[in-house]
């Protein structure tokens, strides 16, 4: 490649972009603010205005106040408020600029946790949950115990709770695993119980129970991987060689063994590898075949 030609071309592109920005910039922020205040302006234009304001936050932190007010304003459209939320959440990465406004921002988020718009509600709860917000934590637990008070479906509630792992809700999650309201709630509960050493027997039982749905057993496998890696290895070997086993589980077991064990380290591992090769070649599932191939490629280095 001719580097000087490349430099010339890049300079040209940047100059064109600079010209575009210069033409927009002087009226950009003023015009954007004005557009946002005109409620009769087309929604698309107001959304673009919010984005433009977001670009200037570091220079003009007071824009944060206006965007927080917009976010909390239930009379504005959800789409516009979602845009304000995205821009504000982006501004949280500007830690110093945002520091003074953080309490207001979190308060605004809490105030709209019950908003009728599903997407807004979820994104708001997610943002608070990732901040390990104590209030949202309580509301999520309450919703799991009394479904009439739920802010989000149980699977999502458990996922959000998982941002702040606490032993005090593990018993509730174990109950959900054994009597799941939905299959996806069961999977999420298993996922969060990966942090609970006491749930090891329960997860081992589920992984071994061929009557459980495939996705539920798969999640138990993932949870056991980090909770009890050595124990998981033994189970994974059995699953990998069982041609009546669920295909996805077999393939995942093979992939885990390839990634995290030394397939040629001991005589018993070499014997296992020979059986993997033999069985995998005959497997009817494309996933198991692919996983076998990858396992053998790893063995051969």
């Amino acid at each position, binding site marked *: *490649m001719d580097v000087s030609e490349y430099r010339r071309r890049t300079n040209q592109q940047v100059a064109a972009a600079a010209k575009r920005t210069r033409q927009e910039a002087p009226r950009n922020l003023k015009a954007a603010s004005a557009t946002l205040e005109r409620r009769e302006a087309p929604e698309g234009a107001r959304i673009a205005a919010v984005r433009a304001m977001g670009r200037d936050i570091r220079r003009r932190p007071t824009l944060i106040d206006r965007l927080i007010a917009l976010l909390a304003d239930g009379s504005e459209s959800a789409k516009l408020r979602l845009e304000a939320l995205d821009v504000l959440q982006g501004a949280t990465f500007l830690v110093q600029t945002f520091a003074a406004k953080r309490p207001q921002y979190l308060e605004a988020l809490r105030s709209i946790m019950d908003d009728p718009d599903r997407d807004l509600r979820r994104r708001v709860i997610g943002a608070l949950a990732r901040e390990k917000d104590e209030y949202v934590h309580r509301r999520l637990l309450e919703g799991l115990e009394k479904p009439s008070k739920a802010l989000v479906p149980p699977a999502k509630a458990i996922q959000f709770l998982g941002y702040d792992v606490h032993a005090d809700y593990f018993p509730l999650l174990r109950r959900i695993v054994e009597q799941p309201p939905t299959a996806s709630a069961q999977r999420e509960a298993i996922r969060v119980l*990966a942090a609970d050493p006491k749930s090891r027997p329960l997860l081992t039982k589920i992984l071994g129970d061929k009557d459980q749905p495939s996705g539920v057993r798969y999640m138990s496998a993932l949870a056991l*991987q980090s909770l009890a890696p050595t124990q998981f290895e033994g189970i994974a070997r059995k699953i990998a060689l069982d041609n009546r086993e669920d295909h996805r589980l077999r393939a995942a077991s093979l992939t885990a063994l390839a990634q995290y064990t030394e397939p040629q380290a001991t005589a018993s591992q070499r014997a296992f590898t020979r059986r993997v090769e033999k069985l995998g070649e005959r497997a009817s599932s494309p996933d198991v075949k692919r996983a076998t191939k990858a396992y053998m490629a790893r063995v051969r280095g």
Partner: protein
Amino acid sequence: MDARLTINGGPNASTAYVGWAPVPAQLSLVDPLSPGPVEVTVRNQEPQTGGRIVFALAGSPSSEPALPVTVPPDGSPVDLLIAGQFGSPSTADGDTAVEVVRQATGELLVATRLMVRVRKDADTLTTAERDRFLSALAGLNDRGMGAYSDYPNIHTSAGSPEAHDNPGFLPWHRAFLLDLERELQAIDPSVSLHYWRFDEPGPNVFTRGFMGVPAANGLLQFAATNPLQFWATASLPGIVRRPLFNVATEPASVSDEATTLALGGSGHRYVGLRDMEGDPHGFAHTSFTGFIRSIGTAANDPLFFMLHANADRLWAKWQWLHRRFDLTSASTFTPLGAFGSPGAARIGHNLDDTMWPWNQVVGGDRPATAPGGNFPPSLLTAAPGPIPTVGALIDYQGVRTPGSRLGFDYDDVPFEAS
């Protein structure tokens, strides 16, 4: 007659990795049996396959794919510079080779394998490159039990003033990325930290085979052979991430590359460029729901590093375009000097300040803990040292000071001598 070619100090099996920035090499004769100097050619052995190499005599401005060299008969070395040829990177470890041939006879004196190893646009990787990258990441994470956990523990709310919303945002993240890349290369030296080009669609990135596709509840699903399925952070398996844009046809909600590169204004000044921390960087984070959307959880998602590698690439490209490697110029970086001097920024964000956590300083102006230890060393270069300053992360190619070369390059950012 035999010759010895030592790349980057050797042994070549560990050190024969080059990017676009030239690395030192020594060529000498072994048992010369020759009364006078020997004329040889140093060249690509298989110019049709793999990465391509160019050569120069030390101190010479021009480099060639085949270089005539006069080697003294007494066994003393000739200093050469070896680099990848811009636009022709390797796709596999040692997929190219350098040979030294005696001009008079055509006799092969020595050959050594090499890799032109650069960070690439993740959307363009071969399947094998992608899989090696994923396997190294999954290895470092080791189901939540590996050394990867240091990175989310560093990138927290407590540590974030060291890294964000200040002039050191770009250098600090450059160090953070290079720290991870060196750990990945300790697992597999053929791996680079590839970047997600957030201002372009990523149809090959957001797949089950690569960075995952969300299920209904946002938890990522992976192909049966993708080891990222075992990813775990903060004691839990899995990654939550849902794009708010069409990954196959649209970029994230960010300014495009040319607009970002223009942020430095007509004077091409760092003080303007660093506005990129908001758009595109912050907006790239909030183009998704899930981990990557909040400071405290963002680094739990490996996409974090690919996003930041792209932010770093944009800075590198701007540096190349406007030759911003001079550490005495406020256009390259500002504030110059150290914390406490007039006009200085927060501690850790001035050119001569050391950076947390690698300096291991805790308490006072710094966070209460410093996970991860000193900066990891490299076989390819002594820079940036165990306790890097902000300034040590700037001339990453050694344009001004060859010794400051950090040992990485981007596929689309060339090296040009100043």
